[in-house]
């Protein structure tokens, strides 16, 4: 069960690459790695908490009001995260500010609440939230890194916003004279990048299937 949840969240049923949910913030913030990681972590924490809370109340929730209750839980969790971020990562909040409240509208979160947490035990639901969130975070970070490297020739710029002053050293500049490739940073670059990631994932899936077929030809029948 746990292995299946992990595999589903990270790969087979990945929020961004397979379910294609939450694309608005995904496409909007990934113009660099740190923004991607920041929003990814916030989404992941929201998913863990909302899944856990929904699972806790699943026994006595009344089905006719379950969706408003889910929305209420998610909205509360996101608001609390926003406040905590303002209190402890204010500079990052200044960058990600408008996207944090938008997590409420990320269909992936209510999707997991309705589709998984409302009918599974707490532990499994928390794990599902973590893995789904991690899968989303991974794609955000990867897409952010791709766009940052191609678009501005750096990696992990502004790391100090998230990890404090010493993290400034984490920034890698590949070429001081790189004049940048604007397309990668602008919204079309986000679509191209995501398309490449989805295509790559599908290609790997097809290849894995081919290999299985070679080993056991009966699989396809």
């Amino acid at each position, binding site marked *: 069960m746990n292995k299946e949840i992990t595999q589903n969240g990270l790969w087979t049923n990945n929020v961004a690459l397979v379910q294609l949910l939450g694309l608005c913030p995904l496409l909007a913030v990934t113009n660099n790695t740190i923004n991607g990681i920041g929003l990814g972590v916030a989404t992941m924490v929201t998913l863990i908490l909302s899944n856990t809370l929904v699972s806790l109340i699943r026994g006595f929730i009344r089905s006719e*009001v379950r969706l*408003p209750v889910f929305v209420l839980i998610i909205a509360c969790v996101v608001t609390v995260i926003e*406040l905590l971020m303002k*209190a*402890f990562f204010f500079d990052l909040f200044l960058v990600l500010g408008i996207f944090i409240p938008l997590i409420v509208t990320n269909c992936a979160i209510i999707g997991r609440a309705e589709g998984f947490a409302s009918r599974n035990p707490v532990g499994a639901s928390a794990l599902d939230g973590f893995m789904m969130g991690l899968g989303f975070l991974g794609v955000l970070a990867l897409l952010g890194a791709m766009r940052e490297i191609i678009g501005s020739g750096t990696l992990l710029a502004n790391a100090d916003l998230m990890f404090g002053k010493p993290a400034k050293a984490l920034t890698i500049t590949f070429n001081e004279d790189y004049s*940048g490739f604007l397309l990668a940073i602008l919204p079309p670059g986000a679509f191209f990048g995501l398309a490449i990631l989805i295509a790559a994932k599908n290609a790997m899936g097809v290849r894995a299937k081919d290999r299985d077929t070679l080993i056991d030809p009966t699989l396809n029948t």
Partner: protein
Amino acid sequence: MNKKQILISGVFLWVFAVVGTTFVAVTEDTTRSKIEDNERLVLLRNLNALLPAEQLDNDIVNDTGTVPASGLLGTQDDTIVYRARLEGKPIAVIFNSIAPNGYSGKIHLLVGVYADGSIAGVRAVKHSETPGLGDAIETQKSDWIFSFNSRSLDSPKPSKWLVKKDGGDFDQFTGATITPRAIVLAVKKTLLYYQQNSDNIFQ
């Protein structure tokens, strides 16, 4: 029976609303002072970027005045000005101006003006100009915005407060004329506003 069901659901929702609101309210209450501190620090950092801390000795974040909406400042509401003093004497004032005609809407500026009418510095605090072209107004991207430092309405003459392409004294950037044009005009108008109102601002 049906009525009873509805009532139970209603109470259920109500309980959740109360619990959720309480939770948010408690968090808001515990983080409020920390958030206010953060906002003040960021503001102070922005103000100090225009006016080095050693040039003033008052609490500039709280020494504010209100100026009414003005076409010269590009504002449609009352805005706050920050006043810098040294030993009680006015040193400089920092305006929140708006350049309404950026390439992608309004560009919010902080414009610091010394008491003698020369510029302490200009910063773009909020804008949505094109990344890679118009965003050269940010200090992280280029030094362009420093070109206003210590300019005034005497240098250059008001008729030269234009980008070079329009026959003025200020550089535009490659590929973007509209953004610098908007900012040059906004800064010039802010200086005009100061010229006309310098007597009341420090009251």
